[in-house]
């Protein structure tokens, strides 16, 4: 799948961070939709299922891990990359247990992020093929 066809959803309450990240992705030809809280994220997933969701763990309102759990339940094909601002690997590991594809720590390298998105989409594709 071409990068232009990727559907990415970015979820973080840090507006400055996430909008800038979206802008940079767009410069690289990746279209990304941005929401700032868990509820909007769930809504966005329900409206238009993304390939990859980049999800901040620590947010006001519905927490990242809960969003993950609910999305994995409703839309299991969505690959989730967790973002965490602090060092607790507990959240990352817990996230992976709940079905996240991987987790990353802020600040992150955009190249690494794109590599992981690629792996996730690749994996999702293979998994879908295996499932058929």
């Amino acid at each position, binding site marked *: 799948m071409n990068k232009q066809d990727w559907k990415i959803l970015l979820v973080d309450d840090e507006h400055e961070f996430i909008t800038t990240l979206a802008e940079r992705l767009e*410069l690289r030809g990746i279209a990304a939709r941005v929401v700032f809280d868990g509820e909007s994220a769930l809504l966005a997933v329900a409206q238009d299922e993304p390939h990859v969701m980049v999800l901040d763990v620590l947010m006001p309102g519905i927490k990242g891990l809960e969003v993950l759990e609910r999305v994995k339940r409703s839309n299991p094909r969505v690959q989730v990359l967790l973002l965490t601002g602090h060092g607790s690997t507990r959240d990352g590991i817990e996230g992976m247990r709940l079905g996240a594809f991987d987790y990353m720590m802020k600040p992150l390298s955009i190249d690494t992020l794109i590599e992981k998105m690629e792996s996730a989409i690749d994996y999702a594709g293979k998994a879908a093929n295996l499932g058929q």
Partner: protein
Amino acid sequence: MRKLAALIKHPLRELTSDVDDAVSPERYTTLRRNIIALMVAATLIPLSVMAVLNYYEHQNAMAREIQNPLRVLVNKTKNSFELFLAERTSTVSLIASAYTYAELADEQKLARIFSVMKREFEGFVDLGLIDEHGTQVNYVGPYALAGKNYADQRWFQEVRLKGKYVSDVFMGLRKFPHVIIAVQHMTEDGRTWILRATLDTRQFERIIASMSLEPDADAFLVNTQGLLQTSSNNYGKVLEKLTFPLPPLTFEPTVLTMIDPLGREVFLAYAYFPEADFVLMAAKPRSSSLKTWYTVRGDLLFIFVAGVALVLFAAMRVTDALIRRMKEAEDRRELALREVEHSQKLSSIGRLAAGVAHEVNNPLAIINEKTGLMKDILSIQPDFPAKEKLLVQVDSVLRAVERCRGITHRMLGFARRMDVSIEELDLTELIRETAGFLANEAMHRKVDVQLDLDPELPRIVSDRSQLQQVFLNLLNNALAAVADGGSIMVSAQPDEAGVLVSVKDNGCGMSDETMKHIFEPFFTTKKGKGTGLGLSITYGIIKRLGGDIAVESTQGVGTTLTITLPKGQREALA
């Protein structure tokens, strides 16, 4: 009693209070003294009571053992004396009754009677007939006593009064100790006369000799005035005054203990004669009688002293061991408290570090993204005079962000290390779950991940999330090392110390040089992709959890990382 109760309660109170308070060496000294005192009292008081009771009981038993034969002997001898005197008195009485006055007054007849008496009964010295006026009308014996008048002598008065008389021992006219037996007889016509015989007291000595006493023992006869009737070995000659006062009157043979005039402690057995004015006495020194007792007493004393020594020794040893244990426990407790305090301090620092890192990471992420965007925009702009310079500035900011990232990540790493949460866990389940995280990638790359987990693996007490990070690191490394289609084997089995887990891959392996450095921080072979912290963090975690990690690797063949983990954290920290 209250003091005793206090003594009994005291060490216990000490024990409990000592656990609560910091214990000074003086308090241990006091405690040691109290415990020893309590143990010694608890053992020595019953032991002493038993010893004293035993001592007196034994002594009394032994004394009884000695006194009884002595009492019996005195009784028998007294009976012998009484029999002797009764026989002689009966003989004289019989003669007085069997013969008439005229016959007895006949010298020849009396001599014949006397010779028969002497032949049949030992001890008769002479025999005389005395008329009612006290004149000896006839006499047979070694002395010229015929015609002697006894009217004013006490014995004459007494025989006239009582009809019979046995005298004390006396010298009298004969000049040797003797006893007289006198019997009064009354004829049908109312005339009275007295037949009197003298007995040699050597017979008495013979009876006493027949008692067969030991050389240091003594037996003798005294009269009720305290004059010796037979010679005593220790208390005077015959007819001398006995050197100690007479014991209380009793006709039953009695034994008493006394200090004799020679200063010896003696058993004195005695009995008064009911029919005569005599007391038979036998004295036996306690020391010779109680030789056996003294031996037993020596043994008893030895056993007691040995028992006391043993009790003291045992009390001291036991107390020392107890105090040592308490000290050790106290030390361990203090150490544990210090450790808890230390880890609490570190934990607070850790939480603070995590908070700071988190707070800094978010704005840092914004700077990173904004600067990144600036760089992106600059990069796509056509050249302009300051473009290169601006790009240099932007890169400089990005490098600074990277440095800050390194700092916050180290702080977070530190916080993680402090964030230890110990629980009992099933390692099999943990490994299976962790391997599950990487199943996606493994499947993607067709890497065969095999798990060989012993079902008998014991549950261990450790930190779940830290161990998960360890296994995640190891599996990630293995996955990075193997080519697509490679294989990874994770095995876990019980070990003497706890559990042995190994992660084996058939990847590229490592050189000896690389192996030397793999646990060092920032050492990486992943060429820009890795942080170089994975194995150093793993190493730190494993060491902190009380385990160990070892590596074996052959270039081109593969690598095996083996972890040992203790069953419990206490063992690990001990």
